[in-house]
C-alpha cells in the first residue's frame, strides 16, 4: 500500500533532505502543510549571513528557499513526482530578513499547463502578512526522464 507521506510534514522533510542535498546542507525544515503544499522553514544560521554587521540573511538564501518551495508546489499541483526545471524566477526583496529569526517560504502553482507551470511564492519571518520577499516563477514540466524520486519509485515497485 502506498504510504500517505504527503500528509505528514516530518515525512516530507525526510524527502526534502534525502532528495535535495543542498537543502540538507542548509537545514531546511518542513514547518507545515497547506493543502498538501509544504511551508518551508530555514532556521537562522550565522553561516548564511549576507551582512556581517547586521546578521541579515543573504538574498541568495531567500532565493534558494523560495525556489525549493516553488518546485515542491509544482510537484504537488502535478500530483506526481517528475523532473521539473526552473525556467525563470523573479524575486522582489521587500525587506531584509530579520536577524536570528527563521525564514519561511510558501508557494502556489496557480496555473498548470501540459508543459509549463506558473508559480507565485513568498517568504517571511514570523508574520506571513509582513513578507521578506515575493516571487513569480515558471517551470518546465517533464524536463528530463530522471526524476529526483525515480530511484525511490523503482525501489517501491
Amino acid at each position, binding site marked *: 500500500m502506498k504510504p500517505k507521506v504527503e500528509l505528514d510534514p516530518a515525512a516530507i522533510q525526510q524527502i526534502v533532505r534525502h*532528495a*535535495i*542535498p*543542498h*537543502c540538507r*546542507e542548509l537545514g531546511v525544515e518542513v514547518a507545515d502543510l497547506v493543502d498538501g503544499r509544504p511551508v518551508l522553514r530555514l532556521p537562522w544560521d*550565522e*553561516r*548564511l*549571513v*549576507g*551582512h*556581517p*554587521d547586521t546578521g541579515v*540573511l*543573504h*538574498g*541568495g*538564501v531567500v*532565493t*534558494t*528557499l*523560495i*525556489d*525549493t518551495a516553488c*518546485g515542491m508546489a509544482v510537484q504537488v499541483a502535478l500530483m506526481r513526482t517528475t*523532473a521539473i*526545471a*526552473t*525556467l*525563470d*524566477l*523573479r*524575486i*522582489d*526583496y521587500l525587506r*531584509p530578513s530579520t536577524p536570528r529569526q527563521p525564514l519561511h517560504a510558501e508557494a502556489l502553482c496557480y496555473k498548470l499547463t501540459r508543459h509549463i507551470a506558473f508559480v507565485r511564492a513568498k517568504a517571511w519571518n514570523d508574520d506571513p502578512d509582513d513578507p521578506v520577499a515575493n516571487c513569480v516563477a515558471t517551470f518546465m514540466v517533464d524536463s*528530463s526522464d*530522471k*526524476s*529526483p524520486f*525515480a*530511484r525511490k519509485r523503482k525501489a517501491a515497485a
Partner: protein
Amino acid sequence: MTVEQRIAAARESGDASGLVDIVPYYRFLGLTMKATPDGPICLIPGGEKLVGNPMLPALHGGVIGALLEATAIMHLIWTRESGSLPKIINLTVEYLRSGRPVETAAAASVTKLGRRVANVRVEAWQDDRTKPVAYANALFLLT
C-alpha cells in the same frame, strides 16, 4: 572593523579573496573571486553540497541565483560603484541550461548606474562561456 572599512582595505590591497571573506554566506558557498580588467569573475566549486537534484545531477537553482546575486554585489563593490554592500531590490533569473555540479563562474556588467539605483546584468557559465547556464538582471539600491 565595519563592513565599509573592510571593503576599503580589501580594495586598497587588491585582495579579492579578502572581499569575499567579508560575507559569511560566500564562505559557506565556497565562493572565490578573480579580478579581471572588466570586473571580477566569481566562482563556486562543484560538489554535492550545492546540488538540488542528485539524479541529473544538477546544482540547486537557488545556488545559481545566489552566485549571480553575489557576483553583481562583488562587481559593484570592486568597481567602486558602491562603498558598502549594495541592497538588492529585485532579481530576475533566466535558467538556460541545467547546471552540472562542477565549478561555475559568473561575471557582471552594469547596464545603468543612477545616483540611487544600479541595473546589473550577470551571466553564469561552466566550461564554455559561450554556453551560459543562466542570466540575471538585478536592481540594487546603492548605499
